[in-house]
């Protein structure tokens, strides 16, 4: 039986609405066969949690620019754990200083992508995390 299509929520949190990266990576994921649930900008942690439950998402991808990454990542990861959703994979990307990349990974973020990350790298890391080989994703 083929595995169900992997579902990934893509969002920005809080008030920052610089969504170039969010739009581009969402398209890359959709083009390579993921089911992207595009949550857009201005999300709260509560909203993304609810969406994760309702949509049965396999992963969450958050894009940051303004320095709010530690706050929202910490909050959402904690909420996921209290709702027994610790298995949901968690990716972050955007303008994130080097020290905070380490901090995010220590919190439990599966991968962090910073400016200049290339499509193949992003797709391959996410594919590995979700247990899909890149080829099977490309085949849809």
């Amino acid at each position, binding site marked *: 039986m083929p595995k169900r299509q992997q579902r990934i929520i893509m969002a920005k*949190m*809080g*008030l*920052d*609405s*610089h*969504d*170039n990266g969010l*739009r*581009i990576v969402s*398209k*890359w994921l959709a083009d390579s066969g993921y089911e992207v649930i595009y949550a*857009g*900008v*201005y*999300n*709260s942690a509560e*909203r993304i949690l609810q969406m994760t439950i309702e949509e049965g998402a396999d992963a969450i991808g958050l894009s940051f620019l*303004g*320095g*709010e990454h530690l*706050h*929202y990542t910490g909050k959402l990861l904690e909420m996921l754990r209290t709702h027994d959703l610790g298995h949901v994979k968690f990716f972050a990307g955007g*303008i994130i*200083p*080097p*020290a905070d990349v380490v901090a995010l990974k220590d919190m439990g973020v599966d991968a962090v992508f*910073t*400016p*200049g990350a*290339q*499509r*193949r*790298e992003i797709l391959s890391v996410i594919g590995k995390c979700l247990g899909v080989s890149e080829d099977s994703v490309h085949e849809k």
Partner: protein
Amino acid sequence: MAEIPKIEFNHSEGEQLPHFHSISGIEYKRIYSREDWDKQLPDAGEYPFTRGIHKDMYRGRLWTRRQQSGFGSPEESNELLKFLLKVGQTGINIDSDIAGKLGLDPDYPLAQADVGLQGTSMCTNEDMAVLFRDIPLDRISSTLIFPPPSSVVMMGQYFLTAKAQGIPLEDLIGTMMNCPFTQLVGPTFQANTAFFPIDLALKIGLDLIEYLIPVTPKWNVLNVNSRNIRESGVDAIQEAAFSLALGADYVDRLCKRGLPVDSFARRIGFFSAVHLDLFEEVAKFRAMRRIWARLLKERFGAQDDKSMWFRCAVQTSSLTLTAQEPMNNIVRAAIQTLTAILSGVQSVHTTSYDEAYCLPTEATQKLAIRTQQIIAYETGVTKIADPLGGAYLVETMTDELEERIWEMMKDIEKRGGFIECFKAGWVENELNKARYKLAEQMESAELPIVGMNFFKDDGAAAEIDIFKQAPDMQARRIEYTINYKKNRDQKPVSRALKNLCDRVKNHADKDLVAPMLEAVEARATLQEVCDAMREATDFSIPR
């Protein structure tokens, strides 16, 4: 790893570029000559101002060094402003945090984690007074980056600060940007419509312009931020066409209100991006000056030269900055700053090299100002008005860009104008197409970026000082706002807010600025004023 086409060193053939077209896709010829361009040019300061809006350009007066700045609390930002003025900044450009632009107070739950991060946290009359402490509002011009309805609240607070400094309103110098489409990002649709009804925001912006024209004769009432348009990934032609079409929409609406075009047009400005394709950018600014002048004169019947001036502030592009080898960004910003000066712009923000990581530090902001000072005082390019004028390439490119921009503007016009295009989702579509295309060009290295997709140095980690906010800044701002609301006389606040709410409910067609200013004077906060109008229109916002 990705397959990146690297420049192959072939010593028999030499190092070669991947292609010869501009960022906007215009093919550069091998050489330009009289066969390409053989016309006469008007003097600088003469219609249609191809060569600059002033006869003497920088010989008469240098451009304003105006770095967008602000972070954390008004106290901290006031210190930063004074530092920047001390090292040679000559104008102020206040960027509030996002809550301030969206009409939210620091204590609003969805705003709390963003307080003070991307600009100054501002919501009360006191905040404005503190931000401009020791800064005379009649001697230093300030640009305030707020869309309506925040623009009205902030203007009211600025008036109160002027009053406290003993400065009459007619002496205020500066700009309220006041555009509801371009002050955040894009104009992407969701970002600009989620926190306030867009039609009402536009209406309030126009009300403010009408209000300000007689009371603040030296103040600029509108600025179209074409930089935000460009930074979403569109090319120079789209940037120019979108922003000029939007500018035309505003002029049209103000004329339809019965305002004589010469009463307000001179007080509209633009804020553009400067990218790295040097000659295309120079041509873009020259073409924009020409188009704006012709629009104002031929379509709107302006008589006064000043109404036809395309006055332009710029900020060097952030999109071209790389996180890899961040020091390379110093070179990019310097070239872009030079490009801006060769284009004859009126004020410049040189983007700091650390902005691919964080807000700029004091040291990198100082370097940005020094970059401008070196160009101003050491290179000699400022000693001639329009130094590139008459060059076959520059004039050919100017003509070519002008033609393409007009063509796109006509298309936008056919679709009902830029504002209609925004509301109908056409702009959103264009922006997304442009972003995907740009991402492709970066992936394929069709757009070479040194250190990123060309000459990438995988081993080198960036060494860079990271700007840090005070750890308790957000908590302090939230607490301050709560206490401010608790400790004031509530009666006049409630009365003014109710009055405003009623006005929007029952007479939204009438001026809304006066009742908003009354609420500000009664010490209502930014969000309280905006909420009164949201309530009146049953508009709910993200939580």
